[in-house]
């Protein structure tokens, strides 16, 4: 089976010395893949490489079967992103933010209106469509970013610490919604987080530490290998360097 997102031997080095090295992973369609790692592990750098904000020093990225380096247009057309930092234009309304994003993916006119209507309904934003993004709560801003990332029906959704700053119920709502999208629509999600309670036993997990992959397997397998009492203990054990 071809992965929706494939990273092969990806590397990037900062002038400061920190490097992301030899990163190979795959996110399959219909799966919620977790990129787990402590702060500073390199998750955001990886997201910046996948989204072409950075150019890799080595290796390759393929999105929906298209190499990002050779066919960036086709590859990025199949990618939706939610960054850790808000990327909304707070001066524009909810609808204007979505229309702008739709236009940047070549969706205009009636197609854009249909996509917007679906997004409003799906994320419960219909009543907020004419409100400035600035006036939304943190949870609704995240919903809007997610709606925007999915507007062009990407094959892959990459989320970088997308629940930071959200309360527990908003976090749960967001995660439930995304897992449902994976199941129902075959979306491949790469979910970068440092919060272990966002991982379920069935999730494929890629554990990142200091710019390198420490382990990659379903969460339940990693738990079994380390013999940890719970997921947190298992991951702490892996991060501490105990080989499975």
């Amino acid at each position: 089976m071809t992965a929706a997102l494939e990273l092969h031997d990806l590397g990037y080095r900062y002038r400061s010395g920190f490097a992301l090295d030899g990163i190979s992973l795959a996110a399959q369609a219909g799966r919620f893949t977790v990129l787990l790692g402590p702060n500073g592990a390199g998750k955001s750098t990886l997201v910046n490489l996948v989204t072409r904000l950075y150019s890799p020093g080595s290796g390759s990225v393929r999105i929906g079967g298209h190499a990002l380096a050779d066919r960036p247009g086709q590859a990025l057309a199949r990618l939706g992103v939610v960054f850790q930092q808000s990327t909304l234009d707070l001066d524009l309304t909810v609808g204007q933010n979505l229309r702008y994003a739709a236009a940047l993916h070549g969706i205009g006119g009636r197609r854009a209106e249909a996509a917007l209507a679906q997004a409003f309904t799906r994320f419960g934003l219909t009543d907020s469509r004419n409100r400035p993004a600035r006036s939304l709560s943190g949870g609704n801003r995240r919903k809007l970013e997610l709606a925007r990332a999915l507007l062009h029906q990407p094959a892959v959704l990459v989320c970088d610490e997308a629940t930071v700053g959200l309360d527990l119920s908003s976090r749960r709502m967001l995660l439930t919604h995304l897992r449902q999208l994976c199941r129902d629509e075959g979306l491949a999600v790469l979910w970068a987080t440092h919060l272990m309670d966002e991982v379920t036993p069935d999730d494929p997990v890629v554990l990142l530490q200091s710019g390198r992959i420490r382990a990659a397997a379903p969460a339940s397998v990693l738990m079994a290998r380390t013999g940890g009492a719970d997921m947190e203990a298992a991951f702490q054990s892996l991060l501490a360097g105990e080989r499975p």
Partner: protein
Amino acid sequence: MIALIALWGILVREGLRFLGQRERMISALLRPMLWLVVFASGFRAALGVAITPPYDTYITYEVYILPGLIGMVQLFNGMQTSLSMVYDRETGSMRVLLTSPLPRWWLLACKLIAGALVSLVQVYVFLLAAFAFGVEVPPLGYVAAAPVLLLTGLMLGAAGLFLSSAIRQLENFAGVMNFVIFPAFFLSSALYPLWKIAESSPLLARLAQFNPFTHAVEAIRFALYLDAAPLSLAWVVGSLAVFSGLAVWGYDPSRGFLARRVIE
């Protein structure tokens, strides 16, 4: 088709942002009007302007500096483009632009076109205000100048785009005022003809000849009087190409120049 939809989306967004910033329009109008009404009136008696092309008669100082002030409107707007790009970078919204599936050069071109159109609106509002104060040009000049104004708007916007790729933080924008806008404006033919500058300092006149803003002003001046300034137009086109090239280079992710700023 996809590229055109994106262009339209960016035009609408920039238009909405411009309309939402009333202070920007007011300051874009107030600044040149102060120069026209206060500064030019004060210097009217002190500065005589001989008959030089494209003028075929003696003109008042207000008439002389009108193209320079139009250039000023576009220069500030170009730098506003730069400011807006740095702001977009700091607020994160630039990531939305840069992760879209269109070529980066096209996205920058869309921003450039949007900025030039906004500057065109500002210029015509200023020309209307100047007309109300009795400073006017031949009626057809208002129409004939439009393509040249679009060109000069693009050139100054491209300079702003390049600067935005090099400016690290929003706070550094004050440096742009001191090191770009003021030298470009004062070291040009906006306020005095080059021959007048040469009388006091041949070196400054020489430097002004190599200032793209001088040529933007001269291209506008000649167009307003239904004349052409081929050398100045060539300078404007050449500068547009150079600044656009530098902007595309500055926003190239493989250099890491922009990339580092995107996440900072």
